[in-house]
């Protein structure tokens, strides 16, 4: 079967690109690094790809706001291509800095590039933190989490601006539409309100959301950092089963094959 082509978008300060490409590789995709300059010059076109991912890192140093400078660049020069990609229902994933970029382009949660309706603010702790956290997968229609609803996944969170924030009415709408894909989970597996289970003070313990169609996903924690057994901090303490991040990438690859 032909492997779906995955555009791994890079720019100045992207730094989780190789491991994200590796995750797609393991999941059966054909990842390719694409610099935003190559899209701007027309040397590369998003239409040539079946999946797109914006990896983690510090695009342009996270100056002004995390992901903001790249978001401005994308909406200034690649708005049509992006909108086309999303309209075509192709999987678009943003991890950590990529999530921040997607929210700051407006592609999440609304799915359109003309209105920013949520934000990823500075962590309540006021600092970057790197720790493994538990994520509860909500029961919804996001293509990336097919078959995972109700499960609790372990991922590493590593960010300084990950507090999901939106106004009450927006939050209600997101909840109503089933756009919450991941919530930080406490000891019992339920949504976590408190630090450190909720590492950044996110409202409604939201760690990841999708667009209304379930084809665009953004999340703060790093699924690409758990696609090998030995990446889990406690792999020596017993089996965790299949590395928790793999299913997310595999779902995207399977979905892309179908469309």
């Amino acid at each position, binding site marked *: 079967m032909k492997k779906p082509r995955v555009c791994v978008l890079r720019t*100045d*300060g992207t*730094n*989780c690109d*190789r*491991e994200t490409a*590796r995750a797609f590789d393991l999941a059966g995709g054909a990842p390719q690094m694409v*610099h935003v*300059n*190559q899209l701007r010059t027309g040397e590369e076109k998003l239409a040539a790809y079946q999946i797109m991912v914006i990896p*983690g*890192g*510090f695009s*342009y*140093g996270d*100056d*002004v706001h995390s992901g*903001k*400078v790249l978001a*401005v*660049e994308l909406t*200034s*020069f690649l708005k049509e291509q992006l909108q086309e990609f999303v309209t075509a229902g192709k999987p678009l994933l943003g991890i950590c800095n990529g999530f921040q970029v997607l929210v*700051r382009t407006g592609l999440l949660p609304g799915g359109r590039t003309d209105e*920013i309706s*949520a*934000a990823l*603010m*500075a*962590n*309540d*702790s*006021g*600092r*970057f*933190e*790197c*720790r*493994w956290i538990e994520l509860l997968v909500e029961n919804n229609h996001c293509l990336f989490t097919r078959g995972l609803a109700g499960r609790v996944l372990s991922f*590493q969170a*590593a960010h300084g601006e990950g507090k999901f*924030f*939106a106004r009450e009415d927006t939050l209600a709408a997101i909840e109503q539409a089933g756009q919450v894909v991941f919530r930080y989970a406490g000891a019992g597996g339920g949504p976590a309100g*408190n*630090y*450190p289970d*909720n590492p950044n*003070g996110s409202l409604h313990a939201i760690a990841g959301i999708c667009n209304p169609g379930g084809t665009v996903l953004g999340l703060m924690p*790093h699924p*690409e*950092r758990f*696609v*090998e057994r*030995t*990446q889990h*901090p*406690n*792999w*020596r*303490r017993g089996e965790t089963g299949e590395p928790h991040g793999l299913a997310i990438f595999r779902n995207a690859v399977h979905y892309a094959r179908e469309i």
Partner: protein
Amino acid sequence: MGITTVRVTNRPGLRDPAGEDVLYEIRHALGIAPVEHVRTARVYRFEGISEKDARLLAEKLLAEDVFEVYTINKPVITDAASVVEVAYRPGVMNPEAASLSKSARDLGVTGLAAAASSREYAFYGGGVTAADIETILDRLLVNPTVETVMRAEPDTLLISGRPGETKIIPIRQMDDAALMDLSRDKLFLNLEEMRLIRDYFISRRRDATDCEIETLAQTWSEHCGHKTFKAELVVNGRKKEPLLKRLQQATARAGHPLVLSAFVDNSGVMEFYHGWAVCGKVETHNSPSAIEPYGGAMTGSGGVFRDIMGTGQGAKVIASTDMFCFAPPDIKPEAIPPGCLHPHYLLRRVVAGVRDYGNRMGIPTNNGSVHFHRDFRAKPTVIVGAYGLLPVSRAQKGRAQPGDLVVVIGGRTGRDGIHGATFSSGEMTHRTTEVNASAVQIGHPIEEKRTLDALLAAAEEGLIRAVTDCGAGGFASAVGEMGAETGVEVRLEQAPLKYQGLSPWEIWLSESQERMVLAVAPENLDRVLAICRGLNVEATVLGAFAAHRRLLVTWHGTVVCDLEMEFLHHGLPRRRMEACWQPPEEAAAPLTTLPANWTEAYGRVMAHLNVCSKEPIVRMYDHGVQGTNGLPPFSGLHGDGPNDAVLLTPLPGRPEAVVISHGLNPVLNRSDPYYGGLWAAAEAVSNAVAAGANPEEMVLIDNFIWPFPDPESLGALDRAVDACVDFVDTTGMPFISGKDSLSSTYRGADGTVIKIPPVLCVSAFGRVPDINRTVSADFKGAGNKITLVGKRTVSEMGGSVYCDLYGQPGGSPPRIDLSVLTGVLTAVHRAIAAGKVLACHDISEGGLAAALAEMCFGGGLGAAISIPAAENPVHFLFNETAGCFLVETAPDTDPAALFAGVPHQMLGTTVAGDRISAAGLFSVSLTALKRAWQEPMARIFGSMRAGNEGRGE
């Protein structure tokens, strides 16, 4: 058009973590009670654009309506008792400025001449006085080296200036006094060296240019020239080989088969697997960090990363490490000498600098430690290490060939870090902060990241003949060294500048960060430039390598430097230095009394600053980026049990691992530099072996951070080097890289002299064939056996945490027995590789007791041990001999068989529950121990407050 100012702050009612952080510091570090609340705002200034365009930028870029509000040309916070704006000083490059310009361009805004950003702090509280605000600014928010309080709107953001002329220094006429006047505070050369320079120019029948004098001073600086380490020593009247030569000879004697490159390149290289090699380098950045800890630590990280990038024909950076020494953070401010910064501030800012550089570059910071001693109050020790991966085929240091082009890639050159190399070689004095302000700068990790991306892309295509980084000494050092064997011609006016107004010598010596120099064959130039362009990296041809063995630098056609390479690199005669050494006096007998309250004593040891958990620091570093981590700094049931080393699997999908660890103990270095040195080396390798590394496949890096080499300090240094040499000769593990920094002496205006404790930090790295045959330190189950492996003389309590806490004599420091160490390391390694070990932890500060407690914390298990009746229980529990291990094995494993032939003893078993008990002596609660162990750093970093909504205080 003038300047338009946009101010942005969070909507009222939303939290402002930056403000809360400042408030926490005001309360806890400064003890200023009247401040009730702090809010912050970001300030952006744009020169040359209309207010309409500024509004566009505010709405599309600067302020997100969801959670922020903005104003144009007027205050945004209007209800506070006091509002203060803190900005970088003009000329200190703010990395955000480039992003502001880029986004403005992207949004179609034209005419922007300059942009700047800064921050406003608003203080609330009825009783806040002007004096309170001044204290907060002085102690917390403004480092005058790089920052300033904005008291009026600036007229312009543009830095202008005309390039200074090249000055002729009439050196031929100078007498000794004049020569030393020229040297003082700037060149840091001694009279003999200054005379040599004068004589050189007399023989050339001309005077020197400022550029030539500066080039010689930096090449001959202690920092670059390692004059002490290369000096012929006379110790107590007896001649000894130079320190560096002894280390290099020991490495040669070891003849380690995996070593590919030792002491010749920017880092040391050893063979890995499958055609790959790993390299390592550890650097100090003490002097800059002492006066501007954030920028100093950042540029320290950036510099050591570039050392890795500049190894062979280019390496990928795969890990970062950090080792710090500070005075206790609760030391009274009046105890801090003039010109020095408080350790509470230093610690937090140094950590922030390492964090921001490594995290933003995407390099996992995985291994490190923090040590405290009162005598670091005059100058901290800041050690940063980095490790890299490169193909064996490109692992040898490259050699530029005549005709190759000198290509600089990365950041632009500014007036940053002028005199950094010579400054680092000078002692810290009360004048240091005033005189050397230009020696520090703020790093730009994104610039370095894209430069790394470009470098690796060019390396993979085989386009690089040789590469080195611009570190101390800037172009002068990098180009001067690369062209040492050939000669080189540089056209300085080609260098891209951050702003105009630099004199030629300043461009030549500037230590602006994030620049690499490549030697590129002319036929490869176009491809290199294309790669750089595609990644937004500036690349410029500065000149070409030649065959005349001269360093010829011109500025618009005028010669500004013309020196013979022979004189520059070999004109400095080997120093002959006197050292004296007196063996430490026979130490008083160690204490023998037992604590009245064991629970309290155990808890105090766990809470000692040199034992306590450093987790709040580690959590600020991204240790998972690159996805390679197979043994993180912390693991275990609750993710808070510390491990001894880091294991990385840098080849995707492969089980082969790189192990990285280190050891240092400044207290021991001071009391006995020989045994302190052995301890550091033994601790470094034990940390790696505890994780499962093979001592036969490991190499070492040395860092000597020593007081100014007067005869006494030099005598101690000589002993520390002897320890390293003996360690290599006994264990077969060679040093393949190293660095010395011999300026840990403070001299105050009033004659105060403080010798900072000498530090020998030994770092170890190696290769492990299979990550699956390695262990973590957390106990894995109840009912397992706990065995102590290794040789200790427990009455050697000198320098121990226990004796420090109780102010009691400790006797001799631990005298590690090298004759048994290798056997112990090998036995532990074999047991782990055989899959017989469930958990392993080495013994260091806090002794067996601390190691045992940490294994319990990680496993969520207790332990029941027995202490041999013949032993003093305090000595048994709290002796700190490195090279000893606690090992957990399954009930059906026989430790006596496993460790036959090396010293070992059964200690007891792991048990379910919350207690560590020693038969007949005590039973202490692990919960209480853990609380004591976690509390000190949590308090400094305020992490207890995170997420605590009730912190309205």
